[in-house]
């Protein structure tokens, strides 16, 4: 049984953190009771806007002694309820820990606090002629949150995911102790990778208070092709051909006309082309003009051989913005098109993505729901949005459950997994259990017990 923080606890917390940054009751905005997932809501008893590792450690140590549950929160842009204080207790918000601490040009690393926003880090890196490759659509997410979900994004085809860019972490453990894992090192064969256990652990093993991230030199040229197709199937079936061609693309994004129209309405801005039912957006980067031109030509020709009526060139800043801004807004745009939605973030082997994409309209028919989708076709990660529209609560829940069951079953048949980049959090626990099986879940629970024997850090998540 957890302890609910009382007046004495709050008084103590105000001695270790500036009282102005310790909020309780009605001082806590409604926003802190949920993330972007609909349907799960719980306000913490105490909200602490932390500014340093020491503050987080002091709060954690006290919470551990008192058996008060603690949840860490960044921007609250998560999609699976991972940052919701299900059991109340203390919420530590890291948005104030937003300093970029060091750019190390000799080790090609940047050291940041966890509350730095992805968009700010991306801009900082670019100003210094570096690239921080992970590029999830949600640019206002924090780096701490990105690490906690092992966020992927749109450059994963070439550059991989957040995990590939985390070199070191400072972590406050559930007992309040502070550990530095990894560092500015390139190689590491020193025992179990605790660093990699923290990455993607959704705030259940420790609280990240500093991160050393790897940067790569900024490619001088980044250009895209927006390739139209007469049908969604044609578009998605072209992806394996592109991958097989060994073209070195950073992104292969798939979307359909309807999603673009939602984005147009949401942004109040027209997309450069909406004449076709489906599109692939392909990106190449590098620093040699001739190589880039060759690569783009190869891919454009290949797509046209596969039936694409054309390939549109997205080369200047203005053109990139007109296309990528819409792409970045797809999630919010679909959300704005309905009353409530839930999402399925399955990942399947790349060569199975077409099968999965073609399956979703079938699910929509079976369960009688509107299910728009778009996704990172090049890395097998699809975002499928199940829209409630005008349905009553009971019908919605029933159909939603049925839709999820069908899709996760299909993903499993295709040797895929439950989440490519959004995580498990609260919403996908049952599906992870079904996908990973008893043994793996037991191993995960064992790891959790070693880090957090009293289960006070983000309880009720993952399993």
């Amino acid at each position, binding site marked *: 049984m957890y302890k609910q923080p009382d007046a004495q606890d709050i008084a103590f917390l105000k001695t270790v953190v500036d009282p102005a940054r310790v909020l309780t009751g009605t001082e806590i905005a409604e926003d802190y009771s949920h993330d972007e997932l609909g349907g799960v809501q719980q306000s913490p008893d105490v909200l602490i806007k932390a500014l340093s590792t020491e503050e987080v450690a002091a709060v954690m140590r006290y919470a551990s002694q008192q058996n008060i549950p603690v949840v860490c929160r960044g921007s609250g842009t998560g999609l699976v309820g991972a940052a919701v204080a299900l059991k109340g207790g203390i919420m530590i918000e890291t948005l104030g820990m937003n300093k970029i601490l060091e750019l190390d040009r000799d080790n090609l690393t940047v050291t940041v606090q966890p509350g730095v926003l992805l968009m700010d880090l991306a801009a900082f890196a670019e100003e210094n002629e570096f690239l921080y490759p992970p590029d999830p659509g949600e640019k206002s997410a924090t780096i701490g949150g990105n690490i906690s979900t092992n966020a992927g994004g749109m450059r994963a085809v070439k550059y991989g995911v957040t995990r590939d860019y985390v070199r070191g972490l400072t972590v406050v453990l559930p007992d309040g102790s502070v550990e530095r894992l990894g560092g500015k090192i390139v190689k590491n064969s020193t025992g179990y990778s605790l660093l990699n256990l923290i990455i993607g652990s959704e705030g259940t093993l420790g609280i990240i208070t500093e991160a050393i991230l790897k940067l790569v030199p900024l490619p001088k040229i980044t250009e895209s092709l927006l390739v139209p197709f007469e049908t969604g199937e044609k578009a998605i079936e072209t992806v394996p051909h592109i991958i097989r061609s060994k073209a070195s693309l950073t992104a292969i994004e798939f979307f359909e006309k309807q999603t673009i129209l939602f984005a147009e309405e949401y942004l109040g801005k027209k997309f450069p082309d909406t004449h076709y039912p489906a599109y692939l957006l392909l990106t190449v980067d590098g620093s040699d*003009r001739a190589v880039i031109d060759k690569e783009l030509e190869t891919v*454009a020709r290949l797509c046209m051989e596969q039936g694409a009526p054309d390939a549109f060139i997205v080369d200047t800043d203005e053109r990139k913005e007109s296309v990528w801004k819409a792409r970045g807004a797809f999630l919010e745009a679909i959300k704005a098109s309905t009353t409530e939605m839930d999402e399925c973030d399955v990942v399947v082997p790349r060569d199975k993505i077409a099968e999965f994409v073609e399956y979703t309209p079938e699910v929509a028919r079976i369960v009688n729901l509107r299910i728009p989708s778009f996704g990172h076709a090049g890395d097998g990660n699809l975002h499928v949005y199940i829209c409630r529209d005008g349905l009553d609560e009971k019908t919605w829940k029933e159909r939603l459950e049925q839709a999820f069951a069908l899709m996760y079953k299909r993903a499993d048949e295709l040797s895929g997994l439950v989440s490519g980049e959004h995580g498990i959090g609260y919403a996908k626990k049952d599906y992870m259990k079904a996908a990973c099986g008893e043994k793996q879940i037991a191993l995960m629970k064992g790891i959790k017990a070693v880090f957090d024997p009293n289960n006070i850090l983000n309880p009720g998540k993952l399993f």
Partner: protein
Amino acid sequence: MNILVCVKQVPGTSQVEVDPVTGVLKRDGQNNKLNPYDLFALETALRIREEQGGEIKTVSMGPPQATSSLLETVYMGADAAYLISDRLFAGADVHATSYAIASGIRRTGAFDLILCGKQTTDGDTAQVGPELAEMLGIEHAANVLSIDAIDDKSVTVTMNLDNLIQTQTMLLPCLLTIEKDACTPRLPSFKRKLETASDVVTVLTAADLTGLDPARCGLKGSPTQVERIFPPEVNKNKEQFAGTGEQLSDTLFDLLQQKKFV
């Protein structure tokens, strides 16, 4: 309908840097692009052609490398392109530029309508379009937000003027400069790129332009001389409003109306 679209090649980055000591624009010779404002003019032309039929020719004055920007207009849908290029035209100010383009336009055939971007991202004067119209002796309208009606005799446009939005009907032929964001320009087509012959761009030198007065060309023919170029001051002015919700919404509404957003 025959439409001419005037375009210019500008530095590829949107942040043009000025050397604070010499006051000279830092140009990266490798990285150029079509002036983004011109894309709205070209897109407007393409949409008129979709409705009315006809031909679109694009015209530019510049060094030989500006050919690549003209090719881009063809990839976007233009039928033909002309590059007015000669050392005689080098160093031209807005007046000498308008003179050279006007001279070139007399060689590119009959037209019903000339469309230009509102301004360029490097010079930012917004003068060449209107000056060109004056030199050709045709009417013009600047900062056109939309073309509301067009037939073979006249065009009705809505213009974004300093303090008001004005709609007016003009006789053809005339020249319009198209406001930014009047439409979303289409992307260049790779298919058209593959289909386009490399000689689609006709180069016109000074010798090709009959009746050209060399004294009105280039640096020599430029009545304005640039003394100094400097980056504009960054405006960080902030205005803060206080009051009740109702007062604030009134203030906000007035402000939006004043800025012509509503």
